[in-house]
């Protein structure tokens, strides 16, 4: 039994060195060498200063910006230090109320738009940090942003297209628009 105990403890220490120190160090070294931008968080800079990560959604509430997915993080939406979904069940009245409130907020800044709201704009994302919206959700907001920024809608549609990624390899996932990249382009165009 004491032999087994010694075998177990020493092997555990050695395996910890291999899988807990050597392995992540090798992954870290190779990542820094091959993919330094991604390994460091895919940061986006403007005028030399980081303004966020292209992978982490930010909170947009002004009419002149495209809004991202609703976020259930606390205390504020899109809290990067505390990712979470809403965890509201499908029949929870709080879910229906949240959806209604989001529809009302979108219509308040764009009363003329009576179209049905794309579902991803009224439902909270899985991480609370979803960086993307569907192309339908971008199109729904396009007239509002164009008006607020005094931009030609056709020009704005080109910016949306430039921030849109199709299904990866033509099959995987869904087409999507990166909201931070798009809003940076909107700022640039309206400058």
């Amino acid at each position: 039994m004491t032999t087994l105990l010694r075998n177990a403890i020493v092997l555990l220490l050695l395996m910890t060195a291999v899988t807990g120190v050597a392995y992540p160090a090798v992954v870290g070294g190779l990542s820094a060498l091959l993919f330094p931008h991604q390994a460091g968080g895919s940061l986006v800079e403007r005028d030399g200063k980081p303004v966020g990560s292209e992978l982490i959604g930010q909170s947009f509430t002004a009419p002149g910006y495209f809004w991202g997915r609703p976020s259930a993080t606390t205390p504020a939406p899109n809290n990067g230090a505390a990712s979470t979904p809403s965890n509201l069940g499908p029949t929870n009245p709080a879910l229906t109320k949240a959806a209604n409130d989001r529809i009302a907020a979108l219509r308040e800044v764009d009363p003329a738009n009576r179209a049905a709201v794309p579902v991803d704009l009224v439902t909270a994302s899985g991480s609370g940090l979803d960086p993307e919206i569907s192309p339908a959700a971008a199109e729904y907001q396009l007239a509002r942003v164009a008006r607020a920024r005094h931009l030609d809608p056709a020009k704005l549609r080109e910016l949306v297209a430039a921030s849109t990624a199709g299904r990866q390899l033509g099959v995987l996932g869904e087409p999507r628009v990166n909201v931070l990249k798009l809003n940076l382009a909107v700022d640039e165009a309206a400058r």
Partner: protein
Amino acid sequence: MTANDFFQVGLYLAVLLVLVKPVGHYMAQVFADTPNRVNRFGARAESLLYRLSGIRADEDMSWKRYAIAMLVFNVAGLAVVYILQRTQQWLPLNPQHFGAITPDSAMNTAVSFASNTNWQGYAGESTMSYFTQAIGLAVQNFLSAATGIAVLIAVIRGFSRRGVAAVGNFWVDMTRATLYVLIPFSLVIALLLVSQGVVQNVSAYVDVATLQHGQQTLPMGPAASQIAIKMLGTNGGGFFNANSAHPFENPTPFSNFVEMLAIFLVPASLCYTFGSMVGDRRQGWALLATMLLIFVPLTLGLVAAEQAGNPALHGLAIDAQASATQAGGNMEGKETRFGIAASGLFAAITTAASCGAVNAAHDSLTPLGGLVPMWLMQLGEVIFGGVGSGLYGMLAFAVVAVFIAGLMVGRTPEYLGKKIEAHEMKMASLAVLIPCALVVICTAIAVMTPAGTAAVANPGAHGFSEILYAVSSASNNNGSAFGGLSANTPFWNVLLAICMFLARFPLAIAMLAMAGSLAAKGHVPETAGTLPTHTPLFVALLACVVIVVGALTFLPALALGPIAEQLMSATGH
């Protein structure tokens, strides 16, 4: 369902099936009793590890000694994870200065990671230091997975050996699983993930001024290395709270595809390894076919339920129709890049395997969509299941199926040339019944206790579903959750830790006991009275046994949770 939904599911299965044979063949070489080209490759590194640990690599262990070594090794690992969490404030690599974890939460997490469950009562980015994550949690991701594979290999030896009272050497099996299988595969997966945007560094969190005059803290850490083994070892414990829904943990549809493949890669390929080691590959394909027979329809059901959307939102001015410009359906708790197909498929895979990583909020799935992952866990985590543990669980069901067939048509119960007698049946029954009993008993305890029901987040039938899901998850070593349940309380931490420990170790020991007695038996020659176990008939019989046990045990409970909720939402309540 849309055409693309079908296509994404089909593509996944096709790529998986292409990988099964080469990976399964490779693992059969790794665990072969005789030296070969593959398992001699790291012989020097191996013998150094054994020499330093005082291990005699040529010792052929009895099943009891094998079980004790497994238990001692895992309990030691559990203790290390507990101590690391309680002392992380004094240890290095803690740039956010996180304090010690509470004793009940640390105990729960230690059991959780040592038992390959990875149930998480804590939120990674706001509680665990990089040191705890890498030295404690990620190490257990490797070692608990390697333990599962080792136990399976011992069980396979029970069938393949004749008249030998030993099942192999735990230290060697565990070490080889880590060095030859888990580390090299993880390395490749980790780099693929980093290329897509998963972070891998030890920097402090980055504060940025956002576009619309706000502040945002971007979490960092050695995530990719840990996430790779989290998927490959069917562990499932997220580096970040949102797990694989977090854009730093699963940034693109391609990373999602890689993560899904990593979950099933080892459990599916081990079926081939099994067939190869018992000298009849058809036996392995038959078990894989059984798993697919149950997995595919349930997956399609889940995706269809999510694509149909949430009836509660139907009256509102919402466009949830799938089109070229949106996924539509029930998007609450889902990420835009994954939409419905890649979220639904992931939810089915992660619960069919005992992984438990999530890329969407299972709590917000539609009632029928949420029933599927819950039931996949309750089936005993044998539809692929955990690495190693899934297949030895399925072998227990196979023994039961052979026995039932023997009763029905009067054939002698034998499997792979071994006579199935009272002792094997007792051990197989234990393996089948331990998780079932834990789910039913502990759910009852939780719903009758104020401390149990206080954790519920959603009202009505869904609240019961949250409890049932949590206990089913812990008692089958899955680890996913209906995340609304506030389970980081002493009551829940203790209850679920008990479930996780009992579901993991007594079950593994029962299977080792079966292996011990099987290995000592001689080979029974095939006769006209032998039921062939590689035929479609046996596949159907085995699937029926798995489903009947799962349905009989859990339908009443499911009727009170997801089924009641579905009926209410369909009638507009």
